[in-house]
C-alpha cells in the first residue's frame, strides 16, 4: 500500500471537513426552522415570537448553506448569532407566558444570559474577527451541559409541575445539544484557532522563521539532493525565458517547520540561486541566496556562498514509518 498517497488523501478529507461541518450547521438550522414553521401552520400551537425565531433560523440556515464554504469565520458568527438570538426569543417567550415558577424562571434567565453572550461573541465572528473564541466555547459548553442535565434528570423533573414547559420537548433539547456540539467542534478548526490576534502573529512569525531559519534536523529528499548536486535531473524544469535557464523546487522538512526552496540557474551565470519560501504561492518576501559551491556527503548536502551562506540539510526519504 502506498502509505504516502493514502496519507495525503486522508489529509485532503480532513481539509474539507470544516466545510462539511459548516454545511451540517446550515442543514441543522434549515431543518429545524422548516419543521417548526410546518408545526406552526399545521397545529398552530406556537406564538408569533416562536415563529419569528424559527423563520430567522431558516433564513440563516439557507444563508450558511449557500455561503458557508466561502468564509468559515463569518459562517460560525452567523450560526452563533442565530442560535443565541433564537434561544433568547424562545426563553423570553417562556417567561412571558407566566407559567413558570421562581426556580424555573431563574434557570431560564441564566439560559437567556448565556444566549446573550453567544450573540455578543457571534457578532465579532460575523464581522470576520475571531475575538472571544474561548468565551464562545465556554458559553456553548455551558448551554450544552445545561441541556444535558435537563435531559438526564428529565424523569425526576417530571414530578415538578412548574418545570413542565422546560421539559416539553426533550427531543428538541437533544437536537439543540447536537447543534451546540457542532459549534464547539467548529471553534476548534485550524482557521478559527489561528484567526485570533495571537494566531495571526504566529502565522507571520512562522513564515519569517521558515524563510530564515533551519531546524537542525532538517532534511531534503535524496532525489532533490541528486538534482542539486548534478544541476540536472527529473526535478529540473526548463524555463528559458531569457533570464532563467531552468529551475527546480524542493521541500525542506524539519522537526518544527518546513519550507519550500526554488533553485534556479540563470542564463550565462554559474551560481545556483535559491529562494526560500514557507509555502508555494505568491513570492515577495523571501530569503534569496547565491550558492557557489554544493557538496554532498553520504547523509547530508552542504551549500556555500561567497556572500556568507554556509548551511547543510540532511538527506532522508520522506516516507513515514
Amino acid at each position, binding site marked *: 500500500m502506498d502509505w504516502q498517497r493514502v496519507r495525503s488523501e486522508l489529509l485532503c478529507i480532513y481539509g474539507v471537513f470544516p466545510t462539511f461541518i459548516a454545511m451540517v450547521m446550515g442543514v441543522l438550522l434549515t431543518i429545524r426552522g422548516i419543521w417548526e414553521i410546518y408545526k406552526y401552520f399545521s397545529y398552530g400551537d406556537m406564538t408569533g415570537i416562536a415563529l419569528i425565531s424559527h423563520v430567522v433560523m431558516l433564513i440563516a440556515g439557507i444563508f450558511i448553506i449557500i455561503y458557508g464554504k466561502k468564509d468559515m469565520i463569518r459562517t460560525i458568527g452567523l450560526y452563533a448569532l442565530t442560535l443565541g438570538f433564537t434561544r433568547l426569543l424562545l426563553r423570553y417567550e417562556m417567561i412571558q407566558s407566566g407559567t413558570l415558577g421562581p426556580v424555573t424562571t431563574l434557570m431560564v434567565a441564566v439560559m437567556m444570559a448565556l444566549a446573550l453572550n453567544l450573540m455578543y461573541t457571534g457578532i465579532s465572528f460575523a464581522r470576520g474577527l475571531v475575538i472571544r473564541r474561548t468565551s464562545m466555547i465556554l458559553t456553548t459548553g455551558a448551554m450544552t451541559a445545561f441541556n444535558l442535565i435537563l435531559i438526564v434528570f428529565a424523569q425526576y423533573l417530571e414530578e415538578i409541575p412548574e418545570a413542565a414547559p422546560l421539559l416539553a420537548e426533550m427531543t428538541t433539547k437533544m437536537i439543540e445539544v*447536537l447543534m451546540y456540539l457542532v459549534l464547539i467542534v467548529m471553534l476548534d478548526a485550524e482557521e478559527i484557532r489561528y484567526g485570533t490576534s495571537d494566531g495571526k502573529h504566529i502565522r507571520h*512569525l512562522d513564515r519569517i*522563521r521558515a524563510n530564515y531559519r533551519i531546524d537542525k534536523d532538517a532534511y531534503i529528499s535524496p532525489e532533490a539532493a541528486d538534482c542539486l548536486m548534478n544541476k540536472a535531473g527529473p526535478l529540473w524544469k526548463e524555463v528559458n525565458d531569457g533570464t532563467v535557464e531552468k529551475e527546480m523546487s524542493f521541500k525542506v522538512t524539519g522537526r518544527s517547520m518546513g519550507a519550500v526552496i526554488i533553485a534556479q540557474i540563470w542564463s550565462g551565470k554559474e551560481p545556483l540561486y535559491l529562494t526560500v519560501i514557507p509555502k508555494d504561492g505568491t513570492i515577495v518576501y523571501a530569503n534569496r541566496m547565491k550558492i*557557489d559551491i554544493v557538496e554532498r556527503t553520504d547523509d547530508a548536502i552542504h551549500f556555500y556562498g561567497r556572500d*556568507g551562506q554556509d548551511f547543510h540539510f540532511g538527506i532522508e526519504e*520522506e516516507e513515514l514509518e
Partner: protein
Amino acid sequence: MITEKLEPHMKIVPKIMVLAMSICCIVCCGVGVYSIIFGKPFASDPSIVSVLMMIIPGILLLLTINRPPRYPISIFAVVVGIVDIIANAPYFFSGYLSVVLPNVFVDLIFIASGIHAFLGDQHSASRLFYISLIQILFHTGSILTVVVANAMNDTPSLTEMTAFLSFSMANYILYTLFLLQPGIREETMERKLKRGMTAVEAMLSISPEAFILRKDVPAIIGEDMSAWTPIQEGPIECFHEAKLYDGNRIFKITSKKWRDDGTLVIGIDQDILTSSYGSTICLRAHRIEEIDGETYLRIYGDDGYFARMLLRDKAPNAGIRRLIHKKENEEKSNIIVDTEEAVIGQ
C-alpha cells in the same frame, strides 16, 4: 500543525504508561469474563460485549510499546472509541437516545482525532486530551450513579460494573497523563509566539550592552589561529567559534577561512535549536577603539558594512545568569508547556 518528521521512539515513562493502559484494558475484559463465568448481574448488561472487546485495545497497545507515541495515541482513541460506540449501541432504541447520542458524537470526534493524530496533526492530541477529561467526568458520574443505586438497594449489586468503570476511568486518566508528556501535544499559542519572536530576535536584535571576551579577539579576527579547527574537505579550510554574551542570550561568532583565496569571513548566530542559512561578512579590516571609557572591537566588511562589539574581560557567571533569569527557567521545566524548543535566554 501537520508534522511530517519521524518522531523519536518513546522513553521509559511513556512506555510504562502505555503498559499500564494495556493492563487496565485487559483487566476490564477480565471483569467481564469473571461476571459471565460466575453469573454476576453485570453479565446480563447489554454493554457486556463491549467490555469483553476491551481485550483488543489491550493487546494492540502492548504491540505499540516500542513504537513512536502517535501509535498508542491513535490506537487508544480509535479502538476505545469504537468499543464505546458498541457499548452505547444497545441503548439507541431503548429510550436513552438523548443520553447516548451526545456520547456517540464525542466518541466519533475521539476516533476522528485519533486518525488525524496518526496522520501527523499535533493539535489532535490536544483535542484528545480534552475529550479524555470529559470521559473521566462521565465515568465519575457513572460510578457515582451506580454506587448510589447500590446503596439505595433498588438494583441488583453491581460491584463488577463499578470495578469495570473504575478501571476504564483509570485508563482515561493514564491516557490523559500520557498526552501531557512533553512534545506530544501541540505547543500553546503563547509558546508559539515566543518561538517565533525568538527566531526574529536571534536574527535582528542585539542589545548595546552585548559583549565579547577580550581574550577571544585575536582568534576572532584570525590573528591567532592556534585555536582554530582545521577542516580536511570542502571549501572552508578552518574555523573558530567564540561567544557573544547578551544578557541571558549567547550568540556564536564563527570565523571561517576559505581554502582557495584565504578570505576570512565572520558570522553571528544565536545558539538556539534552529540555525540560520548563514550570513557572514568578509573581514576587510579591524581596529580596537575606546569610547567613553569602554573598549570595542570594530570590524569592517564590504560596501560600507561595519560592526562594533564591546569587550569585557570576564564571561558572566552561569549560576548568576540562571538566578537572574529564574522565571524563564521555571517556564522551561513546566510540564504543561510541552515544548522541545529550547528557547535560550528569552
